[in-house]
């Protein structure tokens, strides 16, 4: 019913709207727009397609160029469609340009950071939501305060710390500084506050310890926020640039983001390989976007609160 009404509603063109706004016009009188609607709809599609071309063109041309032989990329007028796609550039990018290793490294680092942030944030969030202990308020504010400290303000001493620990150019250097998340603690605390206290009392009577209650009851009730924060943390960790640039040196630990830059400088005579490598580097997140669209949106909107 509602959908029907919306279907007839004119959306573009002031004149049609004003006419429609006159009360005597019956809502379901489809005929009254019979002439205007196809034209308006076409215009809307033209606009939609034009914007889609603008937004998607860089990605499209990246795919096309990855499939063209190197020599043809420089040809003018440019080839905008690969008639004889060549997939070899992907293999070269994966093996010889080390994208395979970079992807492995990024996966190790990102999964570790995400898992660690989930664990530390869930535990702390639980404590702040369910348990009473001295300094609870102060410590929560301390956690929130970390949201205001950007990586850039701490990078110099952190670099020295990493050197002191002997972690330069190792995975711990990329992972350990990010095992805590103020945003995660905040989000989980807020979510856990919504869990009925009766559940806690009942679980305690059943002899559940805190950890068991957390894992068996609280977490299953809070899957959406867990997924949203997990995706957000994953995306953030995957996209890190400055810190990995500073603390890594060799291919064996270099992440995709830094590796892509390496690729763009070193393989410049093989431009199809650069494009293929870029696709390989972006692919995991594209897949993630399609599989976890809903959680991603929620994670990003939650992340927007952080900045």
């Amino acid at each position, binding site marked *: 019913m*509602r*959908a029907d009404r919306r279907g007839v*509603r004119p959306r573009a063109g002031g004149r049609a*709207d004003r006419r429609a*706004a006159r*009360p005597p016009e019956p809502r379901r009188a489809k005929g009254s727009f019979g002439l205007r609607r196809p034209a308006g709809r076409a215009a*809307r599609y033209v606009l*939609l397609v034009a*914007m889609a071309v603008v*937004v998607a063109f*860089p990605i499209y*041309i*990246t795919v096309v*160029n990855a499939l063209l032989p190197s020599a043809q990329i*420089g040809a*003018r007028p*440019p080839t905008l469609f690969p008639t004889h796609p060549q997939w070899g550039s992907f293999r070269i990018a994966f093996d010889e340009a080390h994208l395979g290793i970079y992807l492995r490294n990024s996966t190790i680092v990102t999964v570790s950071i995400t898992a660690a942030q989930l*664990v*530390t*944030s869930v*535990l*702390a969030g639980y404590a702040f939501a369910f*348990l009473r*202990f001295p300094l609870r308020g102060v*410590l929560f504010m301390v*956690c929130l305060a*970390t949201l*205001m*400290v*950007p990586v*850039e*303000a*701490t*990078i*110099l001493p952190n*670099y020295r710390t990493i050197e002191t620990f002997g972690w330069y150019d190792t995975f711990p250097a990329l992972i350990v500084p990010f*095992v*805590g*998340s*103020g945003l995660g603690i905040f989000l989980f605390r807020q979510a856990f506050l919504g869990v009925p206290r009766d559940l806690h009392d009942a679980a305690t009577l059943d002899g559940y310890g*805190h950890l068991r209650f957390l894992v068996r009851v609280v977490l299953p009730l809070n899957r959406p926020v867990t997924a949203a924060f997990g995706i957000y943390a994953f995306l953030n960790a*995957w*996209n890190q*640039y*400055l810190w990995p640039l500073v603390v890594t040196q060799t291919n064996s630990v270099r992440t995709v*983001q830094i590796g*892509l*830059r390496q690729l763009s400088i070193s393989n410049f005579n093989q*431009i199809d390989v*650069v*494009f293929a490598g*870029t696709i390989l580097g*972006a692919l995991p997140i*594209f897949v*993630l976007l399609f599989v976890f669209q809903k959680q991603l*949106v929620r994670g*990003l*909107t939650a992340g927007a*609160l952080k*900045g």
Partner: protein
Amino acid sequence: MGARRRARGAHARRHPRSRTRRQVVAAYLFVLPALVAFGVFVFYPLVKTAYLGFFTTPPAPNLPSHYVGLSQYRSVLSSSDFRDSLWRTVQFVLYTVPAGIVLGIGLAVLANQRLAGIRIFRTIYSSTVATSAAVASVIFFTLLNPQVGLLSYWLGRKGGSGVLQSSSLALPAVSVVTIWQNIGLTFILMSAALQSVPDDLLEAARVDGASSWRRFRSVTIPLLSPMIFFATIVGIIGGFQSFGQIHILTQGGPNNHTLLLIYDIYKQAFQYDNTGYAAVLSVALFAILLLLTFVQFWFFQRRVFYAR
């Protein structure tokens, strides 16, 4: 001990002292991992950065650094180099944030129609959320290459000096790349906000004879304003932290024309080993971002109260 427990047993439920103590121990164990990480990698280095700003870096590596107190802060923050990089950063923010938000709203409105196949367009518009700064920059770095770049060819710059090598066009070019890379995120944020605009309100405005532009301006935009504000602050903060695109596209060049504050910190700290100078810049950046975050928190709090 058994006697003590038995003696207390009757009151155990009203005075669960041992349970309370166990709870406190559990609580501290639960918050400890995060707090240790914050202590070592957030708070200690933050203080240390400010402290490093009190020392000038010696001209040769093995000489002792000199304590100069606040004078280094004064000299760096009043230098024209700092003012220039700050101004360029502000320019970069002005180029990227308003344009990005207007585009994001436009796309969100466009994709909020009930048309066949609209989901395809939504997916395309949000697709650049999957491209990191590095991915976007490598794509455009290659497309803008003066010899083989397609965009250079279309811009009529084949062979000659590239856009990224031009002192007047480099910063705008970096801005365009940044806008493109952020479009997906802005679109997703604006779409989420747009979908929460109640249909009844738009319907009421329509019945009152408001044109579609008028409905957009007087109903939709005010209801979007919380998200617009968010996206603005997040965009400004992101602008001050934009590093990857500079590092890949221009390295701060040509002639420092894209040398943003954050890139200057990186150069001073890790290319010139000018630790004291970089520390002062870091503190300045922190202060700016802190101010912006406070504005955001203040607003967030207000919004939470509105929602209740």
